[in-house]
């Protein structure tokens, strides 16, 4: 019993030590971590390709190569590319890729550094080829996403045989070559000046239109009111004439008399000088009073 327990303890300790050594990359235990894949080579022949977890290898005899299995990031430096219409655009991009066939990869490129150089070249060619088929306007504007898809497809096809899978080639920066900024700025400036003038003039136009409309409306409102006012005055005059006519036509003679008296009352005031004949009705008895 004691012996078995002891063996068990030593066994566990030994296993732990072996795993610890494996973690440090010392066989016989081979630990493949997540994000890695390992090729076990026996005298140059591929004996095993490992997935994450535990595998075994013969110490000192078998050789182990480790490659990443995760998506890798590689950025390609900016380079001037000519568009279909002869303009030059400086384009940089990045690639997300991974090793899907480590055996092919090991045979053709062997290292991630070599792969990155190859990817740079292939991606640049793809960008040149695809951008060269489009005008600068298309590249800058709406076809950028489609462009990236074509570039990705091109690069994917070209790199397949190295055991590389391309997930994505994305264009980051697209700009005009250095030295052309000044002319861009000059163009932007004149465009802005034009816009400023246009905005001011349009504002002026709208303001004057509003003022003119206001003046017109005001005149129309007043003129309409004048018209309506005259109509009402006319109605008043007409109605008054009708009423007078109706009232006076019964006694036209008496009307003339009464109306004259009214007129005198109204027209004769303190500033008036009256030259009167003693023959008038009023003075009729003035002289005759004494003689009679």
């Amino acid at each position, binding site marked *: 019993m004691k012996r078995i327990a002891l063996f068990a303890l030593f066994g566990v300790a030994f296993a732990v030590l072996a795993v610890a050594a494996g973690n440090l990359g010392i066989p016989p235990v081979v630990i493949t*971590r997540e994000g890695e894949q390992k090729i076990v080579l026996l005298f140059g022949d591929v004996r095993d390709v490992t997935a994450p977890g535990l595998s075994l290898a013969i110490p000192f005899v078998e050789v182990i190569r480790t490659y990443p299995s995760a998506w890798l990031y590689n950025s390609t430096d900016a380079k001037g590319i000519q568009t279909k219409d002869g303009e030059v655009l400086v384009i940089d991009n990045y690639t997300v890729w991974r090793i899907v066939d480590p055996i092919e990869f090991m045979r053709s490129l062997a290292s991630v550094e070599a792969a990155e150089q190859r990817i740079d070249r292939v991606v640049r060619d793809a960008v040149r080829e695809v951008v060269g088929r489009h005008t600068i306007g298309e590249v800058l504007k709406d076809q950028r996403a489609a462009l990236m898809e074509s570039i990705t497809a091109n690069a994917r096809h070209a790199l397949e045989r190295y055991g590389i899978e391309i997930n994505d080639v994305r264009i980051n920066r697209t700009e005009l070559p250095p030295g052309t900024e000044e002319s861009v700025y000059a163009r932007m400036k004149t465009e802005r000046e034009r816009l400023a003038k246009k905005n001011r003039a349009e504002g002026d136009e709208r303001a004057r239109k*509003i003022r003119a409309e206001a003046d017109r*409306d005001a005149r129309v409102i007043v003129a309409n009111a004048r018209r309506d006012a005259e109509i009402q005055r006319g109605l*008043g005059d007409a109605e008054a004439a009708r009423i007078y006519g109706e009232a006076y036509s019964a006694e036209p003679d008496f009307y003339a008399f009464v109306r004259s008296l009214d007129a005198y009352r109204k027209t*004769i005031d*303190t500033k008036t*000088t009256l030259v009167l004949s003693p023959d008038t009705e009023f003075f009729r008895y003035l002289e005759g009073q004494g003689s009679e």
Partner: protein
Amino acid sequence: MADEDGLSTEQRVRRSVARTLGNLTLGTVLVGALGVWLSLGVYTLDPGEAAVLLQLGKHVDTVRDPGVHWTLPPPINVRVIENVGMVRNEDFGVPGPGETAEADALVHESSMQTSDNNIVRVSFTVQYRISDPYAARYRIADLPAVVRSASAAAMREVVGRMTVDGVLRERRDALTAEVLTTLQGVFDRYSKDMIVVDAVELQDVQAPAAVREAFDDVVAAIQDASRHVNEAQGYQNQVIPNARAEAVELIESANGYRDARIAEATGEGERFKALSVEYKKAPTVTRKRLFLETMESVLPGVEKVIVKPGQVVPYLPLDRAGAAK
């Protein structure tokens, strides 16, 4: 056998006790060591933390519950603790403390081309969280670099679809929303649900320094234009009510005239009718009385010149009264 060893019973007992004790000690040490080793598998997760467990290198579990946990200790199981609650920020073209936004590196980072071939300066911040720590660590290498490049590319892609005026003024909300959607799509393409993009925030959007004055003048021009329009509307708001007030005055005055005329006519008419009723009863007397009454009221304030017959008598319309005599 004991005799062959030449050992006494006492010695044999002593040796056996020693061996047992030795075994016990060794056992205790080994069990203790095992215990200590196993205790290395204890770990604590704070809220917002997650532990990725790798067993002999292989991913077996992602633990997300906060609290104390136990797993097989290293080197069998390796655990990697990652903060999944934390919002991470990536700044683009945002000046740090003591830095100016016109620093070359920042200008380079924030300068972008628009669809109308203008250059615009956009500085922004991307906020994201790692939602799957396993994928973020093991499915993709160099995640921070990927996040930076993908964010910059997404912003340039969306800005490249917009006009300079769209970026500067009109469609800022659309811009950030589109960048967020594009960016989330890109990350999902690398590994689904690995990263959640919480927000894309524009820090500063402006024209390049060389042409900023011209851009500002356009803004000023737009403000000038709207000021002129406002002034004109102010004028309109003054002129139209004035005209309406004048119109009301004119019409009311005319209505007053009309009503007054009618009232006067009615009054005078009625007065005349009443008078003529009396007149019919005694025409001559009434006539005289009326004439004399009128003279009485008219003559007092008047300068009078009375002319004898035979002289030239200036004509006054008193003759009607005379004619009626």
